[in-house]
C-alpha cells in the first residue's frame, strides 16, 4: 500500500521543529507501524539523509518505550494497543498519516519523536515502593491475599509507564499513571504500612514535576494501551483524602 507520511522533525530540545512530508510506495499491510518506519529510515539512510529518531525496544507492548502520536492520538487508532503492536492493516491505501511525539510540557522533546520521560521515574522514587530489606521477607504464603485483591493489584500493576495518558490529557496530568501504582501497592496488605506516606509523596512529586490537575476528561483512559481505568484515580483520590486528613490532624502514619 501507499502512504503519505507527515513526520515531526526537530534537531534538539531547543531547536524549532516542523512537519516533513515523506512518501512510502510499498508498505506491507502485515508489517507493524514501527517496521514501516524502519523501512522509511532505511531509504533515508541510503540516500544520506538523517533517519527519523523514535523510541522503541521490546516491540511487544510491554516495555513502554514506544511513544508516537498518530493523527493526533497517542499510540494511534487501535484501542488497547501500543504503537509497536499496531499493524499497517489498520490503515488504508493512500492515507495521510501524521506522526508526532508525545506533546506534554513535562516531557521535553529530545529529538524528532523522542521525548524525555524521566519525571515519571521521579514520581515512582517518591513512594512507589514497599520498604523491605533484601532477605528479610517472611514466607510468600505467610499472608494469604484473596484472589480478588491480587487480581485488582495486578490490573493496576499492568501499567507500562509509557506516558500516553499524559500526552492525551489537555492538562498533561499524570494521575492515571500515578494512581495505577498507588492503587497496586495500597490495596495489598504488605503495602498498607506506607499507604499514606506513599500517596502524599507521589502526588507531591507529580505536582512538582509540572504535571497538571485531573479534570475528569477521561482521555487518558481512552488511549491507555493497558486498560488502566479512571477507577484507580478515584481510589487514589480517596487514599489522598484520608492521608491528608490524617496529616492535618497530626496523626502518625
Amino acid at each position, binding site marked *: 500500500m501507499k502512504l503519505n507520511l507527515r513526520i515531526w522533525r526537530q*534537531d*534538539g530540545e531547543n531547536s524549532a521543529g516542523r512537519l516533513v512530508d515523506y512518501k512510502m510506495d510499498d508498505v506491507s499491510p*502485515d*508489517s507493524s507501524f*514501527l*517496521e514501516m518506519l*524502519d*523501512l522509511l529510515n*532505511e531509504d533515508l*539512510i*541510503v540516500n544520506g539523509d538523517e*533517519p527519523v*529518531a523514535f*523510541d*522503541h*525496544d*521490546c*516491540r*511487544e*507492548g*510491554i*516495555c*513502554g*518505550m514506544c511513544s508516537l502520536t498518530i493523527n493526533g492520538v497517542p499510540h494511534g487508532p487501535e484501542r488497547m494497543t501500543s504503537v509497536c*503492536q499496531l*499493524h499497517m*492493516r489498520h490503515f488504508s491505501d493512500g492515507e495521510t498519516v501524521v506522526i508526532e511525539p508525545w506533546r506534554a510540557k513535562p516531557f521535553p522533546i*529530545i*529529538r524528532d519523536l523522542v521525548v*524525555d*520521560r*524521566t519525571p*515519571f*521515574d521521579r514520581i*515512582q*522514587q517518591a513512594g*512507589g*515502593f*514497599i520498604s*523491605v530489606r*533484601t*532477605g528479610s*521477607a*517472611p514466607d*510468600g*504464603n505467610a*499472608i494469604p*491475599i*484473596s*484472589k480478588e485483591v*491480587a487480581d485488582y*493489584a*495486578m490490573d493496576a*500493576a*499492568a501499567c507500562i*509507564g509509557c506516558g500516553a495518558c499524559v500526552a492525551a490529557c489537555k492538562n498533561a496530568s499524570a494521575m492515571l499513571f500515578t494512581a495505577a501504582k498507588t492503587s*497496586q501497592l495500597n490495596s*495489598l496488605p*504488605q*503495602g498498607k504500612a506506607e499507604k499514606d506516606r506513599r500517596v502524599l509523596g507521589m502526588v507531591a512529586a507529580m505536582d512538582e514535576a509540572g504535571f497538571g490537575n485531573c479534570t475528569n476528561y477521561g482521555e487518558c483512559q481512552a488511549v491507555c494501551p493497558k486498560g488502566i481505568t479512571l477507577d484507580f484515580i478515584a481510589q487514589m483520590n480517596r487514599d489522598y483524602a484520608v492521608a491528608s486528613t490524617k496529616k492535618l490532624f497530626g496523626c502518625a502514619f
Partner: protein
Amino acid sequence: MILDAKIPDGSIEDKWSNHKFSNKLVNPANKRKYNIIVVGSGLAGGSAAATLGELGYNVKCFCYQDSPRRAHSIAAQGGINAAKNYQNDGDSVYRLFYDTIKGGDFRSREANVYRLAEVSGNIIDQCVAQGVPFAREYGGHLANRSFGGAQVSRTFYARGQTGQQLLLGAYSALNAQIARGQVEMYNRHEMLELVLVEGHAKGIITRNLVNGAIESWSADAVILATGGYSTVFFLSTCAAGVNVTGAFRSFKKGAGFANPCYTQIHPTCIPQEGDHQSKLTLMSESLRNDGRVWVPKDPKVSEQLRNKDIRPRDVAESERDYYLERKYPSFGNLAPRDISSRSAKEACDKGRGVSYTGFGVYLDFEDAIGRLGQPAIEERYGNLFEMYERISGDNGYETPMMIYPAPHYTMGGLWVDYNLMSNVDGLFVLGEANFSDHGANRLGASALMQGLADGYFVVPYTVANYLARVGAGAPDPDGPAFKEAKASINDNLNKMLSVQGKRSARSIHIELGRIMWEYCGMARDDAGLKKALQLIPELREEFWSNVRIPGTGEQLNIELERAGRVADHLEFAELMCHDAHDRDESCGGHFRVEHQTDEGEAKRDDENFSHVSVWEHQGVNTAPVKHNEELVYESVTMATRSYK
C-alpha cells in the same frame, strides 16, 4: 588465563553456607567508602544495585533505555521457578537442582546450580513482600503452573507478565535507594568500554545517548548485568536494543567468554511472515501446559493446509501426528525446549510444516477448551491469545495457533567463578550475561530465577569478599587508563562515522542474522560452520568499508548506536562459530548434525567435552584461544537425558 572456579569445600548442601561464613565482610561504617558500578537495570542489575545500595555502598547504575524499568527482563511472560513445594507434589531444592542440571544436558557447574535452587524460595518471599501481584488461588495462597523439563508444578506467575512484575518489583527497590541517594541512576548511557587499572576492573566509559558525551566512571568494582546476545541472529524474541557490547568489549579486555555457542531456540514463537519483520514474538511456553503440538502425518495434507485448501479442523484425528506426545510420552508437550524445537524443525524439514512458508506447526487448544471450557483458558492465557490475534490476525480459540522456533536466550556468557567474578579481578557478571547455571540448555522460568538470585542473594555477599581484600580507593577517572580508553572509543566512533558508504547498519545486521541462523542455528555441522567463518569476516569488511551513518556523534544518533552494536556482533559471531565448530559433540541446544542417535537425539561426548570452553581474545582477525574448565560431578551421575 587462570580459571579457578573457587568452588567451596563441603557437601553440596553446605557449600553456600560455609562460603558465606568464611567470606570476608565489609564493616557497615566502611561500606560508604566503596563505589560500585552496575551496568544494567534488568532483573540481575536492578536487584543487585538496589541491594548494594541498601547495604550502604555507593552505587552508580547504567542502562541504555530511558528508564531502568524498561530493561528487557520486562518482556518475560511465563513465570519464575522456585522449589517451594507449595503444591505438595514432591518438589525439593534437590529436585530443582537436578532438573536444572539435567535440563542443561550436564554441561553446567554443579555448585552454582545447587545454590540457585537453594535461594529460589527466598526470591519468591522477597518479591511477594515488595508487592509483586503473583497469581493466587481462591484460598489466598500462591498459585503455580508447570513448565517444560519438569514433572512438578513449581512456576510462579503474574498473568502472562511475570517478568514485568518482577522487574517492577526490583525497580521499586531501586527507586527507594535512588530516593535515599545510595544509587545514582544514569539512563540513556551506553557502556562502550571496561577500564582496567593494574589488572583490576575499576571503571567504564559510556556514551551519553542524548548528547553524545563520552564519559569516564571509576569505582572499586564493576558489575556487568547487560543481558544476552540473541540479537546476533537479528530476528529473535528479544528487544531491539539487546546487545553483546558490554560483554564483548570486556572479552576484548581479557575476560574469558564461556560457551558462546550455547544458544536457546525457543519452540513456541509466532512464525516469520515476511522480509519486513524486525522481530519474532514469543508465545509463552506455559501454553504447552494445555496446548497440544501437532502436524499432519502426511506431507500432502500439510500442503493442502499451506495452500488454504482445507482448514486445520478438517484434518481427522487419525491423520494428525502429536509428535511430542508420541516421541516423549512421559513429558509430552512439556519436553524441554531444545528437544521441542528440534522436533518442530524435523517435522517441517520433512515437508509437514503448515504455515505458508512451510516453517510452522500447530499448537492446538481444542481439547483443553473441551475439557475446561473457554473461560478457564482465557483466565490462564487471555493476554497471549490476544497478542497472537493482534499479530497473526487469527483467533486461537477457534483455530489452532501456528508456532515455530526462534532465537530466544543465550546460555553462554562471560566466564565467572562461584563468586560470579570473571577471571578479571573486580569484574562481576550477573544474569543472562554470565554462563554459569544453565549448561547447554535452559529450562523455562529459570532465567528470572537466576537473575534475581544473582542480584539479590549472591553478589551482595561475594562482592564484599573482593572489596575487603583489595580495600577502598577508586582510581582517578581522569587517570591514564581512562584517558586511553576514551581516546580509543572516540577513534572508533569517528572511524565508523567517516566510512560514509552506501549501506545501513541494519541491512548488514540482517545479513549477519541469516548467516548465523543458517549455519549456527538449530542444526550445525563442520562444513556449514567453516562456511560461516569465511562469510563473517567478509561481511565485517563490508561493514567497515560500506556502512553509512548519517549525522554526528555529538547528538542523539540512533544509527550510530545501532552501528556500534552491529560492529560488535560482527566480531562476536565469529567467536560463536569457532566455539560451535570446536565443540564436536551435540549437547542441549548445540546440535551438531554429525553427532546424533538413531532417533535423532543429541549425542554427547562426555569423554572429550565435559568441560566449559572459555575463549581468550587474541585480536580481531586472529582466532581466539580456548581454555577448559573441567566439569566435575560429585552429587549427580551424568546420564543420557531421557524425557521418554
